[in-house]
């Protein structure tokens, strides 16, 4: 059986042979000077198989949710694999400090594909290079991106019942000179921070960091902000009094009409917004709110510049 993303998921024993052969042939092609070093070929091939297993594709059957890899055409999936092999082979060549020459060398292997410079591939995106190209760049984006910054503040709010941890964070922000967060802490937690004894701050700081890490990497916080954002975007005025409505079904879809949130995710987010006093929703399929509430919801996800 010929391999495809679908077959790798459901019929791995039937297509593993052809899959391995393909990977080995392409690995040898891209490894060039190292093509006869079986260890190097194995390195490349193993890496691809490992990656596809980790992605929940190989042998996963129905136990893992499908990924977009399975929506690629067979030709696109081959191109995906080919590029992955090539990148790993280049990585091996670099590690061996062998010269990596562009397409001309590759052609000498009698292949007709990949004649152009591999680095000339162009896909129009908002970024000219991969977004978040390094962890440092990703961190910088999180620090300056409005929505990601809102999420950080939301996670800090979850420490509201732990004044020592709040104090530890406030001290950190002061030391770092991150004025906006210092002011945010003063405004939001003035009462909690009064009369807190600064004992064992290092321990409290560690606890605070752990909670923030879990919160920022958890999936509920961003969904709340996303639902709040959609409430404003999709809102329609329905009465003369200015009452606004949005259906849960609408909230489950992105601006292009593609469903990307489940009914439960939307409802959980709405329940949270109710608990924050931003909505009066009680489980109805249509969410109704006033203009005043709409303004408060908008402030929830917008960066607070009024401080």
């Amino acid at each position, binding site marked *: 059986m010929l391999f495809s993303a679908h077959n790798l998921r459901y019929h791995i024993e039937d297509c593993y042979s052809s899959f391995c052969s393909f990977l080995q042939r392409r690995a040898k092609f891209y490894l060039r000077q190292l093509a006869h070093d079986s260890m190097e070929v194995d390195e490349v091939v193993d890496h691809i198989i490992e990656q596809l297993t980790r992605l929940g594709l190989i042998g996963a059957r129905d136990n893992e949710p499908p990924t977009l890899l399975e929506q690629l055409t067979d030709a696109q999936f081959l191109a995906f694999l080919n590029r992955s092999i090539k990148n790993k082979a280049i990585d091996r060549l670099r590690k061996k400090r062998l010269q990596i020459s562009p397409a001309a060398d590759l052609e000498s292997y009698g292949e007709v594909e990949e004649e152009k410079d591999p680095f000339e591939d162009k896909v129009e995106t908002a970024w000219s290079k991969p977004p978040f190209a390094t962890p*440092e760049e990703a961190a910088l984006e999180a*620090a300056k991106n409005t929505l990601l910054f809102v999420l950080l503040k939301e996670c800090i709010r979850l420490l509201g019942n732990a004044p020592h941890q709040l104090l530890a964070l406030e001290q950190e922000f002061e030391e770092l000179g991150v004025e906006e967060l210092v002011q945010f802490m003063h405004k939001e937690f003035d009462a909690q921070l009064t009369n807190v004894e600064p004992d064992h701050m290092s321990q409290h700081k560690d606890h605070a960091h752990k909670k923030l890490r879990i919160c920022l990497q958890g999936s509920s916080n961003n969904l709340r902000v996303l639902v709040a954002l959609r409430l404003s975007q999709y809102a329609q005025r329905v009465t003369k009094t200015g009452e606004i409505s949005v259906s849960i079904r609408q909230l489950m879809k992105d601006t292009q009409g593609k469903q990307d949130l489940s009914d439960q995710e939307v409802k959980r987010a709405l329940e949270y917004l109710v608990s924050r006093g931003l909505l009066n929703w009680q489980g109805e399929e249509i969410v109704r709110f006033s203009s005043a509430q709409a303004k408060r919801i908008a402030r929830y996800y917008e960066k607070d510049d009024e401080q």
Partner: protein
Amino acid sequence: MAEKNGFDNIQLAQWLQQVLATPPGQVQTQIDSLRDEGELAGNYHPQFYTQLPNFAMALLKNEPYVILRYAPLIYHLIGCRTCHTAYLEIYDAMKAAIQPDIPAIEVEEDEQMHSMVNVPVRMVELLCELLIDQAGALLRQGRHEHTDNDVRARALLQQAIYISLHIKQNNMRQHALRNLVEVASLADTTPDPIEQNPAAHSYASLVGSGNGSRNARAWRGVHTLERPDSQQVIYLQSGRLSGAITQHEDTLELHLVDLDKELRGRYITISVLLGTLLEPVRWLGGNPRAIRSQSPVAADGSLTTSLGKTELHLGKAEDRYLLETLFKKLDVRPAD
């Protein structure tokens, strides 16, 4: 208030990296310590790793609110080098895949073979290891996040076992499954209540037991039975103690000898760790984790008892491989 300045952003970014860095204690586990240095290296996080193709595609297509939708993943990539490296690789490969003029890549005739028989043993071994590794990662994730990934992990372990049957070389099959018991133990968070007591003896099957001297010694211990064809026996060992599993028609029988004085005259409970993973055996009493011996341990420390019935045949290679794997860990403890 004015916008944060660049200095603020850099300070905050550095702080975020510190906060989000994967804590060192979280990455090392029982399984990691068993892995060879450098082999299949790298800590990764399945819950984030599996999102990478969809995230990359959403970025490439400039989907609305991609940053907000994938915010937890972005925060994770700040602190996890392994997942970040994978993100870069997958982003680049996805980018190549969705170009309008992708070059045609032929799959050659010899790449259309159908059978695992044609796959080099090393590649089959690798696949088994990776499936077990993935199961371990899912179970560790489940433990860490208090989510139940057992069904997914069990499916991967079952698949690894069945794929390993294609490996005819005993030592390579053993190597492919070397982490199986440890990973299966990770799934074993709610053992049978009787297993709360420490096992008196923990046996492991001696795979590939032919007529070697080690197995001959093992069988000499099980002296009460006529010695069958070695292919009809699975030998067990627990330190200096030996045992065996034989088959009579469809019944699997356990034979143990030289059991401790404390166990003599008492019934014992037998636990087959992987018994719940594979289901080719109808276990005596229905629970492979708590099989009560049919008789007490004899005064000379020997015991022969039925374990259950099966359609598998020890004399048939693939069935035998499966049963050998099944008995990779067999514990005994007093029943009372």
